[in-house]
């Protein structure tokens, strides 16, 4: 069974992401302490708390409006590298989503890919750089493939999540070439990337809330 993503579903997705980030705030900061500056959890939680408040206040109707509000609040409250990256991703997703009241699985997959492209446009990350790209990119690929093969949104997102998790774990042996972790050189090897970890939660939130 395929279902679509309307404004309410999009809001549920973002809210679940906020909950996961809050729950794992210390984990994200802990990962960032090892190869960064110990603020990724605090940053994302500050941003997603602001997003949750804005969604509650404005109750946007369409998925595009939900995504746009999310992106704008993240840009305005997160700072650091993740603020512009996540912010741009959501703003690009909003544009790709268009004005309609809901997204079918193919439209949703296209929006997610637009978000990924936004991250690349802003941060110029490539595969293997040890960033959020390394989790989100395989997730987008898996989602595209599953949707193309006619899977339900629910199943497609389950596959995307497995791909994101594998991508996240694959960052452990990588030598960082982008962001703060790149300053550590060889010492960045052996640690899981914080952004890849949080973006996997974004996919997990989708798998938990979308697709009926």
């Amino acid at each position: 069974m395929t279902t679509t993503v309307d404004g309410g579903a999009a809001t549920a997705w973002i809210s679940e992401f906020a909950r996961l980030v809050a729950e794992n705030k210390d984990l994200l900061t802990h990962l960032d302490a090892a190869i960064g500056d110990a603020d990724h959890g605090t940053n994302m939680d500050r941003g997603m708390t602001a997003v949750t408040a804005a969604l509650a206040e404005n109750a946007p109707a369409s998925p595009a409006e939900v995504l746009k509000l999310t992106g704008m609040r993240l840009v305005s409250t997160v700072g650091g590298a993740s603020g512009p990256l996540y912010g741009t991703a959501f703003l690009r997703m909003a544009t790709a989503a268009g004005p309609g009241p809901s997204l079918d699985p193919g439209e949703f997959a296209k929006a997610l890919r637009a978000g990924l492209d936004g991250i690349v446009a802003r941060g110029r990350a490539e595969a293997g750089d040890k960033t959020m790209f390394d989790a989100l990119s395989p997730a987008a690929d898996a989602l595209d493939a599953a949707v193309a093969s006619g899977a339900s949104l629910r199943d497609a997102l389950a596959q995307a999540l497995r791909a994101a998790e594998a991508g996240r774990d694959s960052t452990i042996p990588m030598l960082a070439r982008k962001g703060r972790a790149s300053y550590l050189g060889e010492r960045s090897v052996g640690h899981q990337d914080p952004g890849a970890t949080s973006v996997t939660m974004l996919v997990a939130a989708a798998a938990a809330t979308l697709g009926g």
Partner: protein
Amino acid sequence: MKKLINDPADVVSEALRGIALAHPDLRVDHENKVIYRGDAPVRGKVGLISGGGSGHEPLHGGFVGMGMLDAACAGEVFTSPVPDQMAAATKAVDGGAGVLHIVKNYTGDVMNFEMAAELAEAETGVQVTSVVTNDDVAVQDSLYTAGRRGVGVTVLLEKIAGAAAEEGRSLADVAAVARKVNDNGRSMGMALTSGTVPANGKPTFDLGDDEMEIGVGIHGEPGRRRVPLATARQIAAMLVEPILSDLDFTGGDGVIAFVNGLGGTPLLELYVMYAEVATILEKSGIGVARTLVGPYITSLDMAGCSVTLLKVDDETLRLWDAPVRTPALRWGV
């Protein structure tokens, strides 16, 4: 965690309140967390703004004032500020001659300043030029990394470019002066202890009683390598040698030699370090034109220091010596 704070979440806004109260000739926009020169915008003068994560005080807020910055945007601790802040500051300090963004090279800072420039230009047509500092020789400057971090040179650049702006020079000119400073400056830092981010409550990294980190930045990130504790003499060599092998500092009008404290190290030790640095420079045939010793770009309560050398010419020195009136650097007025 032992800190003179209230709620860790309020550190930045409360420090801004203290800065506003302590320095009545500055103006603080508490909502946007921007510190302004009291008389900004100065008509016809290029506006200088900088900013970054908090925790590096006096950088940047302590360098706002006549002859230096027009505004400083304060992010959360160790987190670059958001585009809204820099966009607001850019519009507020534009005196008609455009605005220079002084950005330390960190992925987050660069992206947030970039978005701010786009925003401000789109909204008011203000002309923005950015200069990115990337002086930290601890980091390989490579296409395959985020590039070198901006550290100590930022302080010197804000002073020197600020003086150029004060002289009424054009945005292109001021940006060229700023780039020259960045091109001719190099830094390297080390830590004896880790700092503690207030929101985390515990040191960012663990360091044994007999260990230190060489090649740290200013965000509590571990350095390039962990080595046994050493003497000031040995540490000076570990910091100065990579700087000297990265750029030829001999000849010309000498250098500005800057020994910086990272927040938890007292002045007594910085002077011991300066003596060692000066000895190496002397042996290397490098003349010291000016010095700066003290905590100017810090990393919370981290104990440690960094060394910055800036190769100078007549113009740079003249601009360095020009009057400046800020909370943290002041002379000639």
